[in-house]
């Protein structure tokens, strides 16, 4: 048991050490992005990896979270640490009717339905101007002055955002870890492998999937809320585009579908790629996203983390 917890403890130690030892704000920015993408990849992975339900519309849930958080802050003055979880909650609430509708469909049909839902959400965000400010979007100009342990929080530094991103990523990974060992997780794997058989042994498959989608939406919504505060700007193209949904898919797939650590690996990998090629060509990182996606599906469909785990498991078994 002890050995199993070692990597997790090591990971937490590294996460705490990063802002203390490295003062480069660009590096910290990259770390924040990685953690944010980890949360989003994990959100997608809960549904796509464990339950095998491929969603091409997770940007819709991200958008609900981002809009809820930013509107609560700008109109109600609600602080980020309330606004972000509430954003997650709002996304979870919205996801329930979406789930009840779309889960009547299976496989590729479900994927297409989520795509349509996301496009509808984007249209609503564009046109419901009294609430969403339309294509103009919302901009946060000042963040609240906050004192924590007697020190005032400096929002211009990256450190508070880093701390928040770490917290969210830990929540996301713990949730995934819990799910893997839970009864619901076992249901989901059964659904992924053979939905008819799962139903035949008495699993309420629709309920299991709706609950999972809500969980996934909660994580994606919190990711959206975090995005709103970190980038301080929300508009339909930024938070509800099809590209965003795809990036979540890629992170989960490249990292390793249905694994706990996969989204983190996927996020590190893809953020690194994006930042490395960004200077050279503007949209270039998407070429590599596409390419890696194809290579991973072709040569290691279990993803990077899945492959690593299989190899290490093999090594331990052999020893």
């Amino acid at each position, binding site marked *: 048991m002890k050995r199993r917890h070692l990597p997790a403890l090591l990971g937490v130690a590294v996460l705490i050490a990063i802002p203390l030892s490295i003062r480069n704000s660009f590096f910290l920015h990259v770390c924040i992005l990685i953690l944010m993408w980890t949360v989003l990849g994990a959100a997608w992975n809960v549904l796509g990896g464990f339950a095998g339900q491929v969603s*091409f519309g997770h940007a819709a849930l991200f958008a609900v979270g981002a809009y809820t958080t930013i509107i609560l802050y700008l109109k109600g003055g609600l602080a980020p640490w309330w606004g972000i979880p509430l954003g997650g909650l709002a996304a979870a609430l919205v996801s329930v009717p979406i789930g009840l509708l779309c889960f009547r469909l299976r496989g590729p049909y479900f994927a*297409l339905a989520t795509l*349509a*839902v996301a*496009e509808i959400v984007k*249209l609503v965000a*564009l046109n419901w101007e009294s609430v969403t400010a339309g294509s103009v979007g919302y901009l946060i100009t000042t963040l609240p002055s906050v004192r924590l342990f007697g020190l005032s929080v400096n929002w211009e530094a990256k450190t508070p955002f880093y701390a928040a991103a770490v917290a969210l990523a830990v929540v996301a990974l713990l949730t995934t870890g819990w799910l893997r060992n839970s009864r619901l997780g076992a249901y989901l794997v059964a659904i992924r492998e053979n939905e008819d058989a799962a139903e035949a042994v008495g699993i309420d498959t629709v309920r299991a999937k709706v609950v999972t989608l809500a969980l996934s939406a909660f994580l994606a919504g919190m990711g959206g809320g975090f995005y709103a505060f970190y980038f301080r700007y929300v508009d339909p193209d930024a938070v509800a585009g099809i590209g965003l949904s795809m990036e979540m898919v890629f992170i989960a797939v490249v990292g390793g579908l249905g694994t706990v650590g996969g989204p983190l690996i996927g996020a590190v990998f893809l953020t690194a790629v994006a930042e490395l090629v960004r200077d050279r060509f503007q949209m270039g990182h998407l070429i590599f996203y*596409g390419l890696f996606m194809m290579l991973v599906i072709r040569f290691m469909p279990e993803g990077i983390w899945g492959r690593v785990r299989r190899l290490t498991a093999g090594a331990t078994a052999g020893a």
Partner: protein
Amino acid sequence: METFAQSLVSGVLTGALYAMIGIGLTVVFGVMRIINLAHGEMVMLGMFGAFWGQKLWKLDPFVSLLVWTPLMFVAGVLLYRLLLRKIIPGGELNTLLYTAGLSLLVANLALLVWTGDYRTISLSYGVTVRPFGIAIAVPLAIAFVLAILITVTLGLFLSRTNLGRAIRATSQNPEASVLMGIDVERVAMVTFGLGTALAGAAGVLLAPSLYLYPTVGELLIVKCFVIVVLGGLGSVPGAIAGGILLGVVESLGAVYVSGAYKDGIGFVLFLAVLLYRPSGLFGAGR
């Protein structure tokens, strides 16, 4: 009344081209049970083919159909042979994700090479005529006629030739087709080539009537899903009906419903059909 007739006509004209894109997607789905998310990029390549053909070699876009359609067929066959064949046994979700990757790769390579500029093709006969007071753009009308010709030819191919029959048989029941001695592997290859060629040809035909930009495929693929789901995935007549229906709905919607939610009508229709008639509006699909 005149507005109604006008939007009906332009809806049908555009719809026929939508239908052609939809047919490509639907025959591929019928035979291989895969949804090719990169289908929109094939259309985009056809559009750019028409553009560069005119720009570099002064080739009329509609004449360049004779060049690009066979080329796209070969590209589709190669794509199937070299890339997709290894993926398909991994299951439909793997294929879906793989083609999503392919779509991103092709669209962004195009963006890198051709930049994101909006381009248009101007034709010497790119005028609008007004028979019975209804405005019709000549390039769109030519595209419409050619689309119908291609679709009819395809229909004849599918119903009259041995290969066409083999494609339909595989689509209905792959196992039985193997037992009947059909080389399903070859059928799949030809079908994928055919689907790609149709997408490319539709792109060439659409090019004079639409703005060209590398990520146009994203918009088209979503429309394409709406079409094939309306008609029933796997059904060719369904795709034709679905394409024309979507063209008309969009065109009427732009006039009679708020222009802002115009695109939303298609999606709502799409969801409603997916939920209540998943086999398609016309029940022809399976």
